[in-house]
């Protein structure tokens, strides 16, 4: 199934793109998507312990399942305000 990955701030810079379309296997979770991203862009891997995630613009866990067409966002530590 095909999903969209959204990246922000430093993760966007490290991957060189704000938005990636990727295929992931049935049964994939947010963590599956992250593992694939980190394999493709090893520089993002150290962020695993400090990021959070969203699926279809709702806060999600790494255990949250993703579906065909899902939009999976990875959020580096935030700094609004």
């Amino acid at each position: 199934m095909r999903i969209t990955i959204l990246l922000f701030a430093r993760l966007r810079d490290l991957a060189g793109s704000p938005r990636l379309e990727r295929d992931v296997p049935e049964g994939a979770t947010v963590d599956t998507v992250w593992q694939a991203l980190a394999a493709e862009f090893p520089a993002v891997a150290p962020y695993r312990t400090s990021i959070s995630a969203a699926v279809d613009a709702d806060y999600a866990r790494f255990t949250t399942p993703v579906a065909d067409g899902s939009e999976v966002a990875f959020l580096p530590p935030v700094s609004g305000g």
Partner: protein
Amino acid sequence: MPTTLLSLTGDPLDMASVVRLVEAGEPAGRFGAVTLFLGIVRGENLARRVVELEYQAYEPLAIKAFEIISGEVAQHWPTVRLALQHRTGLVPIGEASIVIAAASPHRAEAFQACRYVIERVKHIAPIWKREVFQGGEAWVEGATADPTDAAAREAAYGRACG
């Protein structure tokens, strides 16, 4: 100019319009207090001279974050009405990046709610700032955004009421 209570905008923030928004639709005289918080881009940070800040946001989730924060405010301070605008894109030094208005029949709740909201925005809103300073630039990285983190919520409440 934004017309909803919780918004992101690429335009300069206007305090007076936010005050009008937070009071809109309520009978005249219901609110005895409106407190405002403005976050302003400082010209110096960590002993570096800042040239400008750029704010990037995941907009649909940022609006949800603001709604979550608004819900938390309603639980703690049921009489408070909240308006919040956050700027995106390049913000020159000296200009506001965020404006929060809290309206309430009495001032104590309005002051507390305003403080609570800025703490929570910094905890959970999916917004990032890139600091351009003399000699370089860097993304600023603060809190891991987790709206379910009860300890962070309690810390914000403690600061608001401290």
